[in-house]
Structure formats: C-alpha cells, structure tokens
C-alpha cells in the first residue's frame, strides 16, 4: 500500500496538483518567497519614505532589506566603496548633473533605474495673526531669490505679488537647507543653475560655490545670515516645523507626514500647483530620459524641459529618484545577493508603486517601469522567478492585459508612455475648456524614455523637444513660456491676478476632468478572459475526468479481480 502510487491514487493526486496550480494562478495560495539573502543600501532621504514602505512590505514577504537615509552623496560613496549592495540617489555619478565634490566612482559596472517620482516641496511655517497660513503662493523667480539670499523678508514685493490680499509678516525669512550631501540639494541647485543662472551666480559669489555646477552640498559658507543648515530630511523638517518664518525644500512626503503646508508654486502656465501625484506626473512627461544604453547614466533624467513646461497642471520641481545597482558581481555583492536585489527592485517598480501617491510621491509611468525592469535583468544573479514576473509585466503591457503590476499610471491596452495620472489630472478651475484643449487627447503628454514617445506630440512639440531645451537651458524654457498657448507668463507675473482671482473664487467646487471611461476589458485580452479560459478548461475537466477515472478504475478492478481469482 505504501509503495508506488496506484492508479487509483493517481487521479486524485493529479487533481490535487492541478488544484494547487490553479490556486497559485488564481492568486489564492500562500507561498514562500525564495530564500533571499539579506541586503542593504543607503542614500537619498528624499526618497526615504518610499524605501521604508517597500522595505516594510517585502519584510512581510520574509525578505529583509536594510536602508539608511544618509543622503544621496553618502549613498553613492558607500556603493562605490562596495560597502552596500545598492544606493538610491537623485543624481548620477557623472555628467553635468553630478557634483564634482562627490569624487567616489564605482570601480565596477553599474546601472541606474528610476524607482519613484516626486516633487520637491517648499514647506513653510508662517502665521498670519494667530492662524497658520496654508495658502502661500510662490513664483519660481521668488523661490530663486529666497534661496540665494536675495529676498530675505517675507513681505518682499516678489512674494507679495503672488499673494495679493495676504498680510505677509515683516519678518526675516529663515531659510532651512540640508547640511548633508543630498540629491534634493543637487536637483534644486541644478534648477537654480539652469533657470536662474544669474541668481545662482550671486549665491556663489557670496558663498564661494562654483557658478557653473550644481552642488549636492548647499552653499552657505561663510554664512548667509538668514540660512540655517540641518542634517537630513528629518532635520530640515523638524527645524521648519518648530520655527516660525522658515521655509525649506524637500520631498512632499515629509511635509505631509508632519501635517505642514507646502507653497503652491507657479508653473510656466501661470497656475499655482502642489506636488501631488498628478502634478508631478504631468511635469515629468517633459523629463528627458537618457536613452543611450551604453552610458552608465542610461535612464538618468534631464529636467530642463520640466521646469518650463506649460501644462497648466504641471508642478515644476518634479524629479525621479534612482536606484543604483551593480551590473557585475562585486566584493559587496555576489549572485545570491543579486537575486535579492532583483526581487526587491522589481517589487519596488511593480507592486511598490501603488501606494506612492498616498505617501506623497507619484508612481512611475509604465514605460520607465519597463525600462527599469530591463536594468534589473542586468543584475548578476537575478533569479528566474523575478525574470518570470518581469516577463509577465512586459507581456501584459504589450498584450494590453492586466495585471501590469496594477500600476495606477497604466491602462491596459494603452501605450505604456501614456500616464493615466496625467490623463486624469484635474485642471484648475480657472483653466477653461479652451485652456485645456492642448493638454487633452490621446497623443497629449506622453512620457519620454525607452519605448516612450520620442518626440512630444503635445502643443509644444515645436519648441520644447528636450534637446532644444538642453542646448539653451534657461532661455529655452523662458522663451517657451512667452510663446506657448497658455495664458500666463512664468516670470512677469502678468496673469497673477487672473489666476489668483479665479483660484479664490473657486471655493469648494472642484472641477473634474470628464475623461471618457473605457472598460478595462474592452480592449484586448485581459484577466477576465484568462479566467474564463481557465474556467472553460475546468468545465472540460469536469466533463471528461469522471468517465475517464471510472474507466481507469473499472479496468483496475477487473485486473485485480483477475489476480485474486
């Protein structure tokens, strides 16, 4: 009885196997994650809240990943020094966005993949009378003047111009910057350098920084009187929350975690926006993604065209954050650790994107998710299971079917370059139907990058290909702002009254975007179709198995009877 399986046992056993397979496919059965080695990384605190979320969630999968928010500079250094398996940073090691003071370079081959998008928010602490002010509006020139020490009073005309009717205090602006080397600082000073080179030059004249280069270390030495430097995102956030008249820059999630307002920033179209997942997604359709697969900076971002993008919904200080991964085994990482890193990175790109909006970030568009997954394939030791998942994602995107990671930016059947967060991003009340027209339609606002739109088909196609913006950074965006179809000028503030007035009038009413609703399943093959197929198969089994089993059993019974006799 205990010896080889009799046929009588085979049938149910096979069914049991089929059943368990079915359960797995239906996503019902608990399973074990592979036995992944523990790995660790360090870097960006801008993206730190996102990393913490992923780590907690892969922890629930039984996979242990450590991460330290030490700032991008430290992260890149520890990665280069082969102390950690991965780094997270907003800027690459090389190129014009790199900081020359970060002089550690990996002595091995590596790659970058975007892991999350977000907006650098300007959290502030202001009271008018006894109540906290929550509706501060700032133009980009005002931000440039504040953070280069030229506008030092809250009632400076450049600030009051955007806040008509608001009694801004006659107090010194306490500017809070990061003291540690950070990608947030690098991206912010890069924005200054590109958009307001004269202001950046003035800052450098006072502090001795290099006016030709952005920096990861905010220049305050030998001391801008009204500046204070604090350590890490936590440090600048705590300082700002506890001190009046302060303003800082860091990822939006930090302001949200402490319940503080962030300034509404006037975009090139003249509308004031916050770094919501939608506004960030809109802005980053203009991120020019490095598509040179041979470059170590493949997939890195050039945000020149983002700053001046004239979609009324755009948040200009939007950026991607990157994971830096080894593409060969190193002293820090063997193949087994590579398997963990592949699992973790794929988790971040796929399931990990879903709650990003709730945390204060913006999920990656599908084309970058796919490009990132191609990078993951280069990690030595990435295992079959992870590859299978990535294949599944790729196929579901190209086949137009779910799940495609359930990424909220993606609609099955649509182009991976079309970000649903962009499609559904609401317009300001003041942006009427005519104002909205250029930003609507199937071809509007496609993401750039691999498998994405190579040229923007939006209304700015003529003026703002990223390359053009690249060559004449500041000027391009500004010329753009003047020439574009939208109603306001980014710098002159000419439309302020209109924008602000309309905004004030808007009240509680919210303008919703009447986007045509498309059934998921109405385009292409989807999960329901798969399920129907499986069910069909099972019904077939239902019909076929009993007679077959009965036949088998009766044969067996006959032969058994034969031996007995």
């Amino acid at each position, binding site marked *: 009885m205990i010896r080889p399986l009799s046929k009588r046992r085979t049938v149910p056993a096979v069914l049991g196997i089929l059943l368990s397979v079915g359960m797995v496919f239906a996503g019902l059965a608990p399973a074990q994650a592979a036995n992944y080695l523990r790995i660790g990384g360090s870097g960006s605190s801008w993206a730190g809240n996102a990393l913490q979320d992923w780590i907690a969630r892969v922890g629930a999968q039984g996979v242990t990943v450590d991460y330290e928010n030490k700032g991008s500079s430290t992260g890149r250094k520890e990665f280069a020094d082969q102390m950690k398996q991965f780094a997270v940073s907003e800027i690459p090691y090389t190129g014009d966005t790199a900081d020359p003071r970060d002089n550690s370079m990996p002595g091995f081959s590596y790659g970058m993949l975007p892991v999350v998008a977000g907006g650098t928010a300007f959290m502030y602490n202001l009271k008018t009378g006894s109540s906290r002010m929550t509706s501060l509006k700032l133009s980009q020139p005002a931000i440039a003047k504040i953070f280069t020490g030229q506008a030092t009073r809250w009632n400076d005309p450049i600030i009051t111009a955007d806040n008509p009717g608001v009694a801004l205090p006659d107090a010194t602006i306490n500017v809070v910057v990061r003291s540690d080397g950070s990608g947030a600082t690098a991206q912010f000073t890069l924005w200054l350098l590109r958009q307001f080179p004269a202001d950046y030059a003035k800052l450098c004249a006072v502090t001795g920084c290099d006016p030709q280069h952005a920096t990861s270390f905010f220049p305050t030495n030998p001391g801008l009187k009204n500046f204070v430097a604090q350590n890490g995102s936590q440090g600048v956030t705590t300082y700002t929350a506890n001190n009046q008249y302060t303003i800082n820059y860091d990822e939006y999630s930090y302001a949200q975690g402490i319940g503080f307002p962030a300034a509404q920033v006037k975009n090139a179209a003249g509308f004031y926006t916050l770094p919501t997942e939608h506004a960030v997604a809109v802005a980053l359709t203009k991120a020019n993604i490095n598509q040179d697969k041979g470059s170590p900076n493949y997939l890195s971002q050039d945000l020149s065209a983002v700053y001046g993008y004239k979609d009324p919904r755009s948040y200009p200080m939007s950026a991607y954050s990157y994971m830096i991964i080894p593409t060969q085994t190193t002293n820090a990482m063997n193949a087994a650790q590579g398997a963990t890193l592949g699992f973790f990175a794929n988790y971040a790109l796929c*399931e990990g994107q879903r709650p990003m909006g709730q945390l204060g970030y913006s999920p990656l568009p599908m084309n970058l998710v796919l490009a990132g997954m191609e990078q993951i394939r280069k990690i030595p030791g990435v295992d079959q299971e992870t590859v299978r998942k990535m294949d599944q994602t790729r196929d579901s995107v190209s086949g137009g079917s779910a799940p495609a990671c359930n990424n909220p930016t993606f609609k099955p059947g649509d182009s991976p370059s079309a970000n649903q967060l962009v499609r559904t991003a609401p317009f300001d*009340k003041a942006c009427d139907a005519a104002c909205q027209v250029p930003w609507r339609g199937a071809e509007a606002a496609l993401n750039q990058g691999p498998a994405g739109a190579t040229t923007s088909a939006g209304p700015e196609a003529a003026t703002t290909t990223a390359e053009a913006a690249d060559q004449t950074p500041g000027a391009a965006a500004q010329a753009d702002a003047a020439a574009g179809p939208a109603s306001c000028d980014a710098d002159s503030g000419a439309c302020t009254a209109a924008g602000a007035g309309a905004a004030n009038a808007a009240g509680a009413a919210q303008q919703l975007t009447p986007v045509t609703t498309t059934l998921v399943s109405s385009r292409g093959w989807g999960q329901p179709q798969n399920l129907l197929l499986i069910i069909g198969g099972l019904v077939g089994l239902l019909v076929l198995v*009993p007679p077959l089993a009965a036949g088998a059993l009766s044969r067996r019974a006959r032969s058994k009877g034969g031996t007995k006799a």
Partner: protein
Amino acid sequence: MPTSWNIQWAPRARQLRAALWAPGVAATAAAAALLLGSLTPVAAAPPVPGSDWGSQGSMVSDSSATVTWDNTSNAPDSRVPRGGTQTLRHTAGKTYDDVDQRLRDAASRAFGSGNGRGGLSLTVSQTKNLQNQSVTVSFTGADPQAGSNGASTSYLQVFQCWGKPGADKKPDPAATEPDPSTCQFGATGLDGDISNTAHQRSLLNDPLVRGGDWEAADPASPAMNLPAPFAPVSGDETRITDGFNLSEYRNPYFSRTSTNEFSRFLSSEQGAGSRTFEVQSGAEASGLGCGYRPDAPSVAKCWLVAVPRTAAIDAILPAGPLAPSLWAMRVQVPLNFQDVAAVCPSDQAATLSVGSEALTVAMKSWIPAVCETKKFTLGFSPLADLQARTQLQQPGSLAFTTQPASAGIGALYVPTALAGVVIAMTIDNACTAAFTPYTLADCGYQDKADWEADKARSAGQVRDLKLNARLLAKLLTQSYVQHTAPASALDAPFTKPGNTAYGQPMTYSIQNDPEFRKLNPKGLGSSGNLNPPVVEGLRSDAAAAVWDWLLNDKDARAFLNGCPDSSGMSINPFYSTRTYTECQDQAAELDKLAAQKISGTTMPDGFTYARQSYPSEGASYPQVYWAQRAATRNSDGSVDQPALTVGDQYARVQDMAAAAQNTVRAQPASTTSWCADCSPPAYKAVPRQGYGSRNILSITDAASAAKFQLPTAQLCNGDGSLCVGANSKSLQAAAAQFEATGIPGVLRAATVPDYATAYPLALPVYGAVNLASISQSQAATYAQLFSYVSTEGQKTGFSSGMLPPGYAPLTEPLLQLAAAGIQTLQGVPGPRQPEAATTALLPMESVSSGNPPAVAPLAQAVPAAAAVVPAAPPAAAPVAAAAPMPGRTAATRSAWPQYTLVIGLAAALASAAAAPLLARGRRK
C-alpha cells in the same frame, strides 16, 4: 539559487501537513480548505507565553534554559565535556585534552565550579517557538578576573549557529552540537572592535588547526593565519580566501549592521551579566536559515553559543572564538524555532492600507496569517495618523488611526488593537554594579540584602523607573541644566549651574530633582547624564496622546504654563506658555524672571522668540531652537565647524520603531560629533554608549518596546501614591474607562486616569473605512480582515498570526464594536456608483482649495452611526454624481471569476471523488 533539500526531523505538525498532500487525501483536503477558506490552520501552535510583557521589560517563558560550564545537569544537547570525550571538529580528531594546558587551566579557574563562585552558569530566557525576537541572555558565577585597575576582564562572546552539516553537507538532524563553521560571528558586534583578532573569525596561531580540513582546504595560505570559513545553511561552498573575517561587508551572509553577535559581553565585578540578544530567523540571517520552511534550506533547531574568555586566555591565544582551542571552552543552548510563516505571492496585488505606526508590529504578525486564512495580501504602509485620516477621503480606502476623522467623512471605525505609548529605557544601573561603602547612601538601599535583591531583579539595568506627568514635561522642555545643550552658560547665563541671578537656580539634572527622588528613592544609581527622551518626528496620535496626558494633568499643565513645582523648579522659559494660569498670584514676578532669562540669552540668528502653546500645532514634540553653539571660524573668517543647533543636539527620529531601535542600541539621537575627516567635514551621529554606562530614554509604542524587551517607565499620579506600568492588564483596565468622543464608535483614553489600575497612555487603534465610497467587494475584503483581527488576531503569543507582546487583547466592549462594524461591512450593498478602482483617482486639489491637502468633499451626508448601513444609495458623493469618476471603471474586480473558479474546481473534484464510488457501485 539554493538547492531544494531541507530537513525532515520535523515536529508532528509539519509531518501532518506533509501528510495532507499525500495522494488520496490531498485533493479532498485541498478542496475543503478552499471551500472553507476561513478555517483556522490545521496545525495550531501550542499556547505560548508572551502575554506577560510589562514595564520590567523581561518576559518569562516556559522554555528558559540554564546551562553550566561544568555540565552539571545540562541537557544532553547542551553538554560540552571538558575532557577527552569532547572531540573538536576541523582538528583531525583532536580533543579537549589536546588544548594547551595553560588555556584549560585558565578557563577552569575562571569558569569551573571550583572558582569560588559556583562556576559559570548561563541562562537563555526562551529557547522554544522562537522567531525574530529578543531573548535575555544572562550569566552568573564567573570569576571576574579583575585586572590591575580592578575592572573585570572576564567576558563572553555570544553568537548564533545553525548546527552541523552532515556528510552530504545538509544539516545533520542528529547533531548534538553545532559546528563552528556554521556560526554567525566575525562581523564584529555592537561592542566589537574590527581590528581585534579576538573579535574576528581568526584562527590565529591555534595549533589544533594543524592537519585538519580547514588547513587542508587552503594549503597555499599561511597555515597559522587562517580565518574559520563560514558554511551557510544552503550548503554553498565558501572559500577561505573569500576573506570572511577581514572585511565585514564582503561577507554576503552577515555584516556589522545585520549581525547579532556579542564580541565582548563583559562580566560585572560580581561575575555576572545580562543582555538582550536578538534571535534571528532565516529572514534576518539568511546564512543561518533558522526556522523551518519547506522550500529552502532551513533548520528548525539552531544554537546559541557562548565562549567565555579572560585576559589571561587572550594573552595565550588572541584568536577568535571559532578557533578550536577556544571553541572547546564554549557553553551551548539549542534554540528551537517556529516554522517560518507562509507569505502571499509577491506579485499578487495587495489590498492597500495606511495608518497608525502603533500597529506596525501587529501587522507584521497578522499579514501572513491573513494571507493564509483569508487568501488575500494585505499591504500596510505606516503613515502619520494625521496623514492617514486624509486618505479616508479617497474612495474605498482603509486607514488605521486612533483619533477619528472629521464627522463629515462618515467613516466606520472598527477596533483592531489596544496599543500603548511607553517611555522605554536602557539605563545601566551603576548601583547594582558594585557594592561600595557609598552604595547604601547613594542608592537608597536599606541594607546589603536589599541591594542583593535589587541586583538579582534588575540584572544590571534600571527596570523600575517611575515618572509622573510633570517629570516628563520637564524632560521634554530642556528644563534641567544638563539638557540645555548646546546652550553655553556664556550665551544663556540662566543655564549656569548655581546661578541665582534669575531667582532659583535651574535644577541640574533629573536626579537632583526632589520630585524624582521621591518617586525613585534608589535613584538611577548613576551620576551620569540622562538625556531627554528620543522622540519621533511623525505627527502621530501616539504623540497627541502623550500631550493629552500632560495637559490633563494639573501639575504638568501648570509647569508648562510657567508655574514652579513644589521645590521651586520652573520650566525653561523658552518652552513656557507664560500664562501662569495656575499661579496667577505670582504671575507678574514669574514673568519678570522669565523675561529676564530670555533677554539675557544670546539667541541664534534667525530665531524668533514666540510664546509656546500646547499642544503644539506644529510638531509632535515641540522643539525650540533657542540656543546654539556658534560656528567656529578659521583664521580667514571662513566657517570651520558650522553652528550646532538644538535640532542637532536632540534630533528627532523618523518614527516610534526607530526610537525603540535607538534605545536598544543605546544610540543617542544626536548628530553633534564633528567629523573633520569626512568629505566634506560634517557633524555626524554620536557613537553608541558603551555597556555599563548606557542611559537612553525614548517615547515609543509598547509593542516596539516589548519586541526588544525594553523596560518601560511606570507612570504615577501627582503625589506619587499610585503608579502603573504598561502591561496587558493595565491597558485593558484603561480601555474599560475609555470615554466617548464626538464620533460614534470611537473612544479615547480617560481624561482623569485611574492610576490604581489603568495605564494612562492606552491607545485604541481603529480600522477606518469610508462607507460612502466603499464597494461591496472592498467591504467584504475588509470584513474578512477585521474578522481575522478580532478573533485569531487577538490571541496573545509569539507565533505568526497572533497578537504580539506589547498589545492587550481587545476588551469585550471593543470586540462588540468590532463585531458590529464587521456586520455593517458585510451588509454593504453593491456598488452604488461606478466603482473606482483601488487606485481611484481623485481630482487634484485646485489652487483654491488651499493646503494642507484639502480634498473634494465626498460623501458629506453619510450617517456616521457605526452599525447603521445606509439603506439607500445616499445622495452623497455629489461630486461623483455630477461627473463620473475619471479613469478606469471597476477593473472587473476578480472576485466573481475567482469564486466561479473555486466552484468549478470544487465541482470537478466532487465528481472525481464520486467517480470511484460510482465505479464501485457499478461493479457490484
């Protein structure tokens, strides 16, 4: 990837589970499991202790084990013979008798039963049903072998090993001792020194290695300077030349940040010690694989090994503890792990939830069990409660919070856990370290017997700290001289010790505070600093609960308002509201002094003085940047070291879990250590405090504290007559006294705490669901979750799926609320509107909506009553009615097809099962 073998000396439960899949039974059982998905797992874990967590920090278990160096009454698998019967592995068959005579004598002298102290005896507080957790490792009876300065030189090196590879390199289930190559040691622990060969895997000059396989494995290497290789449980070959002992980060299996080893667990002068040891399962220590899992190399039984050493031994052989001659001196305790919980497939779309960090520890336990029993993946992202509440405006979202969202949201609140906020501590008790002529006077003992009793109980740490609300207010407001850094007496003269120019001088430290001494007559036994508590930056309801407690306490409130306590101590004026509400008769005089103190202080550039108000509207724990240490400048005027602010001195940590982590690691949250060699030079985190002089307080949640077995402060009433610590009972007593909030179904801690029984900082955590926007399938899913959480999830224990230590089971009234909530969810009718996908898109707030996040006014009109199901599609969701929700429609939520699948499968199975019967019937 790892090979697929595993070990099969499984406990019965596992065999049972394996048997289920045997042919014949398999299909039926699986079908049953499918159809009755809500059944509890077949193999229920045995009842486990874990409910006795409390302010002492330690937890008893029914599986503590004590072993002695001389093997008297050691269990068979803890026996390490000190003689020829102890064969040493990797030495070509040598035994204990081959160890250098001097080493054997030195060890026997220090640790044998003839050492005059009874001999080394080591106790591990829990040895069965382990997972990733803390256990207490303590020892007594060692000879401290005092050095020339009188300090003890005896110490233990403690680490975890997975066992012994058999001939096939797979774990040998019959092993009665671990193999040194399987030990996680050499990355240098928190107390280690990377440059010390004794803290490495070094085999330095151990003659026993000669002729053994370790030497043979790498003949090219200088034979006397080998590191012990590490044999991971996967059976992978690791070459000695991989440099396993030299650079921590080149070892793929463990590193300095991940290891749990003690490099130098120093004995007290009494020959004893006690520490919290982090037991690691395969998830934390992948090279060890402790905790059986069917799909990966793993073992159910690992080992804790302690190698005792002295200065005399190190002088003879300064190698690491894996060197055979030193390994021979070890004591060992088997660690039996619970099976690793199954997890949901990582590519299954999770049901997302956000919210209270006080739930983090419980969620870690519940999520795998919810997957196993309810068949869905729950994703939980801890967020500030404040932020979580705003998420409730997203359709269909699930948020966990303590305080209710505004009534307009019309959320349903289901009690999920009874948590607590605690003041956790790691404070080494100098009093119990040694009995000196001054001990009785300094530490308040009646006699030496009293001291002995305290020492035995506290195991070297302060475990009975008592605080009242005013003392905590003092600690949170920089009101002791010791806490006024980085102010210097030059810049802030009122902080100068003994300065009477501003009235009564500031009290120097909490230990000089008569109020503290009255509550804690034994003091802290240390003259050292006691920093302000490490606190989080997140705006949590836990922090709000702390401030509610302070402000509802008349003494603490009076102190914050500027009124002095009975001994005349008053608040640091920068933290004062200066309203003097409780001491109006002295208001003018007090305010004059406060104004003098403020005007006499050199405040930092950019600092604007403003009176404080409580609770702070801006920060979880307000911090006033009233003082700084000025920047130091180079001769050319450029800044050398930038100014040091209050925020550098007392930095906030991310969340309560981080605060607990800082406490157990004795890591002050200060970035004040100037690193001139850094590029560029910068302030960095200060080093951890050394064992023996640790003193860290933090405000964290009871579960995070219990996870590390941290002692927590008892909270006392104003006159100190009643004190209560956080434990399961006192949290439940507090719950019995919860008061109603304005929102139905939501309760809060009593305004006037009953210190006799009820812990004042009890924190109910609710799962909140926006009824107005929820779909039927979401409601069903949430009902499943809550039904798990309110039943199996409330059973206390260490096992996965249970309620971990640090929570109290929900009380009956809370359970009833939960049941009502579940019923409401089960009664939610079908979608009342085109259902938004889980990631439903909300309109971005328009410019006008202002900030902080204002969101479209969804569903204002929904009845808030907890157990009331809106009978009809409410006219709520006006926005949605006006314009269809953009984006995807219900992505054909797969509930139905899945059920169809299940039913189809079940039918197929039923017919398959029936076929033989039919066949049999026909045969007759």
